[in-house]
């Protein structure tokens, strides 16, 4: 099978071109390093099936970063006669992109060039003479706009007759000279005044105005996430559950008869003779209610806002602004991206720590995310439990977590071995997100969440139900009762909630609420749930990404932190 490799600088739209060629949906954003796994797909063209490989973005063919090593080794594995290299170029930035192109040509790969974002270049007053560029480089160039699909058909048609390039290797300085010549022949700039967009781009990287922009964007984002989430809960999910689903379940309840095992498993226990979606803890009641009415609405609104920020190109600017602060935690600015992803779900957050270069950095980032960054289900739980008292306590939980995140980072920076590299990130232009691409990305993420979360929630509720019914959890509460009572000031039954929190944070809410704790106890239990073991999926990813040794270290830190914070809070808070 012939192979088609997509290569290019970071953030030029390789993944969008890939989706267009193969129909396989992959995540794409407006910041470098979105592609963390090499994606593969198939394309049928010129009477044969091609394997299309989406490589991570690279600036050169020298192995300087991890992404470059991966790309290089994949390119070297395949014989040159069985491949075509599709070099994706950002048309708005011809000069820098051509450096990699020339290296590919000098290495005698069969190359075809895709001048992506051609429409954007025209908007910015950059006209590229395709014929002149083809002549200067000696390869085919096809202008495209992958987001709308313009030019992709033409690109596929030209794949048939690509010959290996013949270009003599030159020194780095000479290469830049050749690029200068090619660009001056092929590119025609019409001078334009600074547009509003360019003013905004400049403002967002200056220290003072950048800070103001960042704070307002983050506050606005938080507000939008809450508003949309609340709207979905109150206007969509709750009406469906209470007006349509509950009457149905009431009939099932009568049919099964209370106090039977099936009733206990499927519907759970009646609270005041009624099904209580939050507390009954049944496979058909609490499990779907938590997932679809408490968590999913916020997952949708969170990923909508995050995807929007990603596609606009805001994240690298945030990375740059926070670099100074994050350096003190042993990270660099770009580590803010995994943190933001972790606020949705810790799993993709920890996965994206792969974009960080050093082992030490990945360890610190992953540990900090799993301890101090509450995911959407956990946040829904924080709001669900503490929100019944007042917003003051909700803020309190967030403040404790944030302080912990900072404090742990400072300590880890002092103690963890290894080095943390410097920030080096390209600040992309702001782009207006494409609605279709945004919708696709949102769908991909929500689907990913449901597929991952729903089975575990169902299994978790089922197992806990069986154990509660046969009273198998009594030994657990018995063993932990001294810890719960003496250290944390919690009733011994809270141990069950903490252990269940290991499966899914959101299931634990159904176990905590019926305990009828005081505000102080709820506060401590919520914070403990947030810090202690992440859910089973995060646990697994943490193990896979860190390896056994670092994983054990990370877990020990987690347990120790939970213990210390629990005791401190118990001592510090004067009973409310």
């Amino acid at each position, binding site marked *: 099978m012939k192979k088609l490799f997509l290569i290019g600088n970071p953030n030029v739209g390789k993944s969008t071109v890939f989706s267009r060629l193969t129909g396989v949906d992959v995540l794409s954003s407006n910041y470098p390093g979105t592609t963390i796994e090499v994606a593969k797909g198939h394309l049928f063209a010129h009477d044969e099936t091609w394997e299309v490989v989406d490589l991570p973005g690279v600036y050169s063919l020298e192995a300087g970063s991890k992404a470059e090593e991966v790309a290089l080794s994949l390119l070297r594995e395949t014989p040159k006669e069985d491949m075509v290299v599709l070099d994706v170029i950002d048309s708005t930035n011809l000069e820098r992109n051509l450096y990699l192109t020339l290296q590919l040509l000098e290495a005698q790969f069969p190359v075809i060039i895709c001048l992506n974002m051609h429409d954007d270049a025209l908007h910015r007053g950059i006209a590229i003479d395709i014929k002149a560029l083809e002549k200067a480089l000696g390869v085919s160039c096809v202008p495209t706009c992958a987001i709308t699909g313009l030019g992709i058909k033409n690109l596929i048609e030209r794949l048939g007759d690509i010959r290996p390039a013949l270009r003599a290797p030159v020194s780095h300085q000479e290469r830049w000279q050749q690029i200068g010549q090619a660009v001056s022949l092929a590119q025609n700039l019409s001078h334009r005044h600074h547009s509003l967009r360019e003013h905004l781009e400049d403002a967002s*990287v200056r220290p003072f105005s950048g800070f103001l922009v960042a704070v307002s964007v983050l506050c606005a984002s938080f507000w939008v996430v809450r508003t949309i989430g609340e709207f979905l809960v109150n206007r969509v999910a709750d009406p469906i559950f209470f007006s349509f689903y509950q009457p149905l379940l009431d009939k099932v309840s009568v049919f099964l008869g209370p106090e039977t095992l099936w009733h206990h498993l499927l519907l759970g226990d009646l609270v005041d003779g009624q099904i209580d979606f939050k507390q009954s803890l049944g496979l058909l009641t609490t499990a779907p209610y938590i997932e679809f009415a408490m968590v999913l609405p916020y997952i949708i609104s969170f990923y909508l806002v995050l995807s929007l920020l990603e596609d606009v190109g805001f994240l690298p600017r945030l990375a740059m602004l926070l670099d100074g602060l994050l350096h003190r935690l042993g990270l660099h*600015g770009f580590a803010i991206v995994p943190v933001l992803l972790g606020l949705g779900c810790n799993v993709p957050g920890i996965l994206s720590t792969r974009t960080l270069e050093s082992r030490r950095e990945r360890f610190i980032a992953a540990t900090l995310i799993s301890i101090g960054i509450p995911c959407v289900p956990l946040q829904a739980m924080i709001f669900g439990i503490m929100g019944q008292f007042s917003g003051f306590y909700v803020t309190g939980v967030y403040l404790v977590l944030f302080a912990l995140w900072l404090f742990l980072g400072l300590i880890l920076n002092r103690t963890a071995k290894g080095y943390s590299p*410097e920030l080096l990130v390209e600040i992309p232009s702001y782009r207006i997100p494409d609605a279709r691409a945004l919708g696709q990305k949102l769908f991909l993420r929500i689907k990913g969440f449901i597929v991952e979360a729903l089975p575990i929630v169902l299994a978790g509720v089922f197992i806990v139900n069986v154990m509660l019914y046969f009273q198998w959890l009594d030994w657990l509460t018995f063993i932990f009762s001294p810890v719960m009572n003496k250290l944390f000031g919690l009733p011994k039954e809270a141990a069950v909630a903490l252990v269940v929190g290991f499966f899914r944070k959101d299931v634990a809410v159904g176990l905590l609420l019926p305990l009828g704790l005081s505000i102080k106890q709820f506060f401590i239990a919520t914070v403990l749930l947030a810090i202690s073991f992440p859910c089973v999926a995060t646990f697994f990813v943490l193990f896979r990404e860190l390896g056994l040794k670092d994983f054990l270290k990370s877990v020990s830190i987690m347990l120790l932190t939970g213990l210390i914070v629990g005791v401190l809070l118990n001592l510090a808070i004067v009973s409310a």
Partner: protein
Amino acid sequence: MTKKIPLSQVKAKHKVHIVDMEGGCVFVNRMMSLGIYKGRELSVVSRLALRGPTVVKVGRSTFALGRSMAAKIMVEMRS
């Protein structure tokens, strides 16, 4: 007389050109692939507090360079 200073000390909105790249071969090559090399002209867009990065414009691209990277790039002010 122009003076040779590290890029990390240049204030925002200045245009400079690179006179020397200090640091190892990997660093120099990496910068080279971004278009940052001896003789190249840069404009400093901003410099962030708290030992934060320096943001530079090279050609049509904008990069944020961590402070100790910027410290290895020796530049001369354009008059």
